[in-house]
């Protein structure tokens, strides 16, 4: 039976892990390769690295980081943040990343999803959607949640997967950092619009929130950062508890 995935997310800047609240006020939570190894030992199912470095050094620093992480761990990991082209993707996959996540570049031109999935297979192309509530629905945002792309998030999920994205990393901007639970309505709307796996992100504060997204929405995977980095929730205890509640997880 396919297990539900628990995915710690590591935001990295200049090679260090950081995590903010509602995408601001960043705090330093340590060395990425070291954290990766700890999560791996704790039986995290995957890791996601989101690079928020804005300098010209970005690409070299990120490729170095990916090589270090790939050598250190034996679980899959995804890298995202400012990935623009098939060349970028090739470099990161070549350095040992298993998947790449693409956000703003795909909103600017979804063809990058098609090109990447043709070159490397759709299974390694993750479409990251940052969604913010607007009226009765949600709008997709780009540039780290700062700029509205003027597109309905659910429709964008449908379009993005038709271009070849093999997975969706769905973040609720409203819920992110608030620790009041995942946005179940957003998850349901997107997951029912596409056939690919969808990772729920944004809002995890307690173990109950994870149970909720798996029980109420049959989510494929749930991602969190702060609660894991600061040990408010530990992955092994979370998995034991989910397992006791009847959720299929990797033990």
């Amino acid at each position, binding site marked *: 039976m396919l297990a539900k995935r628990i995915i710690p997310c590591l935001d990295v800047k200049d090679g260090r892990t950081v995590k903010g609240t509602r995408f601001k006020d960043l705090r330093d939570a340590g060395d990425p390769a070291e954290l990766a190894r700890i999560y791996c030992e704790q039986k995290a199912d995957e890791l996601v690295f989101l690079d928020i470095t804005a300098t010209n050094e970005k690409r070299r620093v990120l490729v170095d980081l990916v090589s270090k992480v790939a050598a250190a761990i034996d679980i899959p990991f995804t890298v995202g943040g400012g990935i623009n082209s098939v060349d970028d993707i090739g470099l990161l996959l070549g350095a040992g990343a298993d998947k790449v996540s693409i956000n703003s570049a795909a909103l600017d031109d979804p063809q990058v999803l098609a090109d990447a999935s043709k070159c490397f*297979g759709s*299974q390694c192309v993750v479409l990251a959607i940052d969604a913010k509530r607007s009226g009765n629905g949600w709008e997709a945002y780009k540039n780290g949640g700062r700029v509205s792309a003027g597109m309905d998030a659910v429709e964008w999920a449908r379009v993005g997967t038709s271009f070849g994205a*093999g997975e969706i990393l769905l973040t609720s901007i409203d819920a992110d950092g608030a620790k009041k639970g995942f946005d179940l309505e957003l998850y349901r709307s997107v997951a029912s619009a596409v056939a690919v*796996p969808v990772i729920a992100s944004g809002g995890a504060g307690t173990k109950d929130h994870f149970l909720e997204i798996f029980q109420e929405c049959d989510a494929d995977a749930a991602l969190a950062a702060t609660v894991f980095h600061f040990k408010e929730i530990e992955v092994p205890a979370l998995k034991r508890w989910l397992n006791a509640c009847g959720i299929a997880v990797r033990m």
Partner: protein
Amino acid sequence: MRTAIVKYNSGNVRSVKYAFDRLGAETVLTDDPEILTTSDRVVFPGVGEASTAMAYLRERELDNVIKALRQPVLAICLGMQLLGRTSEESNTACLDVLPFAVRRLEGRGIKVPHMGWNTIHDLTSPIFEGIADSEQLYFVHSYYVENCAATIAKTFHGQTFSAAVRHANFYGLQFHPERSGPAGARILENFLNL
């Protein structure tokens, strides 16, 4: 003992090499036919798209080199699928080492790609020594190999299909041992010890 990893336009050659490095194996990443042919073990990794991968292999005549290998060969994910006759992915003619056809995963209520940790069952090969039935391994793929005479492990996602195959010296794994934690590492170790 030297293990050659086929270097081609597959996404994950590096993580496969790292996984063998962690086991202390002597590995070489190469597309040199001479080195491939004379190594003690050959690993044929694969993350990517079938037609793109086959075009690359044909252009460099690596297709015939791989087919002619006589030492133990470990084909991973797309690598395993390319051992078959044809793939529905871009209607690609593959290496034809094994007679199977590769089909697209479809079905009501299942997510495609099949992505995540799934259990393997009905293990019938020494490559699974020390691996329990229902062990969880990491899968990520949209196409599958039907259960057939070569099947040495099965999994289930909407339907049952081959998690692993073996024909003569060729071993194929649909899951990613290099990304499957300690169980995956054990399978790679078993391959080195075949």
